[in-house]
């Protein structure tokens, strides 16, 4: 599917995440973007890294296929950097909280680091 690229902004990110729109999310990334994820299984010394827009699109496609709710809050932005928090909830009550920090370049995300913690 052809992805129409659009410039990333706080409201656009919030809308795409909360509507579980994987293709819109993928459109915010630069072709050579890097997404890093840190959680219990992916510690800071060995975070999970996803390289490139295509792989990142597959990642968001998996996440957005889940029947869960996402609430994006506390979006901050300055020249070349953005950050937001995200609270997620599964239908069985399991909750996840993420903090995401990004670097942007020419309106696209070039690097993103997500730190997440889950109900166990």
């Amino acid at each position, binding site marked *: 599917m052809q992805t129409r690229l659009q410039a990333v902004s706080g409201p656009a990110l919030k809308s795409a995440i909360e509507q579980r729109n994987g293709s819109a999310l993928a459109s915010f990334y630069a072709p050579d973007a890097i997404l890093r994820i840190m*959680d219990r*299984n992916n510690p800071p010394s060995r975070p999970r890294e996803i390289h490139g827009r295509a792989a990142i699109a597959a990642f968001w496609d998996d996440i957005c296929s889940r029947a869960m709710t996402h609430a994006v809050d506390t979006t901050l932005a300055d020249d070349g950097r953005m950050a937001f928090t995200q609270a997620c909830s599964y239908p069985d009550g399991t909750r*996840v909280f993420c903090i995401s920090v990004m670097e942007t370049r020419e309106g696209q995300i070039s690097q993103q680091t997500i730190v997440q913690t889950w109900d166990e």
Partner: protein
Amino acid sequence: MHVRTRYARSGDLRIAYQVVGHGSVDLVFVPGFISNLEINWEDPGYARFLGRLSAFSRLIHFDKRGTGLSDRVDPGNLPDLRTRMKDIHAVMDAAGSGRAVLLGASEGAAMSLLFCAAYPDRTRALVLYGVSDSSHRQAAASKALDRFINLIEETWGTGRSLQTLAPGLVQDTQFCDWWGRLERFSASPSAAIALARMNADIDIAGVLREIRAPTLILHRTDDPHVDLAAGRDLARRIASSSFVELPGNTHPIWTGDVDRVADVIEEFVTGIPPFQERQRVLATLLSTRLTRPPGYRFSDRRWSEAATNLRERLEAVARSFGGTVVRWEGDRGLARFDGPAKAIRCGLAVAEACRGRLERLAQGVHVGEVELSQASPHGTTVMIATAIADSASAEQVRASAVTAELCAGSGLRFEPCGQIRFDFLDKPVAIACVATVQHLESARPVPPASIDLGCLSERERQVLELLAGGLSNTEIAVQLQISDHTIKRHVANILGKLDMSSRMGAAAAYLASRGRP
């Protein structure tokens, strides 16, 4: 590991399921013949397998209706596979999974194939393990089914069904006990027979052409339950599949080298080869060996009985300290623990349990990284622990200095007792001996008291010399050909005359006095 069990509603029934892991890909594990979500975690191999899968995925696993913690069904009127396949749907809905990779093991593979054909948009990919289509099962004849059903009739709940699924594991009494427990907690004998009959009737040939999802088919080369040729044939009949043979001679997916299985699945699901270093983990190893008292001859049969007895004791005591016996060869054992104090306390407890017997134990403990990709740990840490046990005398538990340092605050006390050189290490490994009679010792090390052996009789001096050599009362009695009771009286007299409160103190003072010019 505590994982919350939840329940999904599938029609009128409740299906028990668990979710573990934080990965972006949902992986639904569809079990084979029987399962019980909570008993599964008790087996180290099963727990390791689930742990590996949940490290790269959000793992969703469940007990099929009629098994484990899910609602029971009438064994005389079991629903067909299509109805039972809806349990996958129900569990995915409850866990919020829109699309998942299905991992179907054995009979679970047939259910996964059916689900994939019915719900292609909810199947991201398929991993099938140890499965054949119906043509191969019919070729294997109904005699095998009759034999299996007879086995269930006669032995259900004892673990004997392992004979058909993993004959090589029948000798592993610990695993056999767990398997028997899994049988009892997963299904009644009637339900197990009904399940076995129904599994034999499953026909998946009709759905194979409809499978479009990327499919990985795994098969162990010497699977005793399902022919390797059947797996290969299945792979030929699913256009989107690839086939991987793995070495091994067991059927259940969580037995044998589970890391090898998990490696292949992880690479297929994530597209990235597993990070190899995660298979090296920090562990504490307790090496235990049986020792013969000097001058006493055991028959081979007596020695073999003593070794069996030690193995059983070590397994039981290690379990109570959260450890596992990972290797046993002849009269030597190796147990793995997650902490050094637990390993040492286990060593002391096993030695105590063997006290009063002629055969005794010499033990060594070392902490280090071990490789878990093999059936049991191997490598440098194992060699050091074994060498420390070799250096120990009867009833001693010795530990490397690094192990002793890690026990700070545990209440255990150590005395330095030399070092061991290894040609593969730059520096020798310092060794400490665990002090067993702690409450009678001074908190500060004190030089051994000067003692006058002149106050002892000739016999008492002989007893003290043997006692200082590490012999027990029974061994001294054998050596001197007098009764245990007399030895006890001599030891009490020696302690009284030397004004000592413990055997260890008397032995240390005796050795110190001999060492003086």
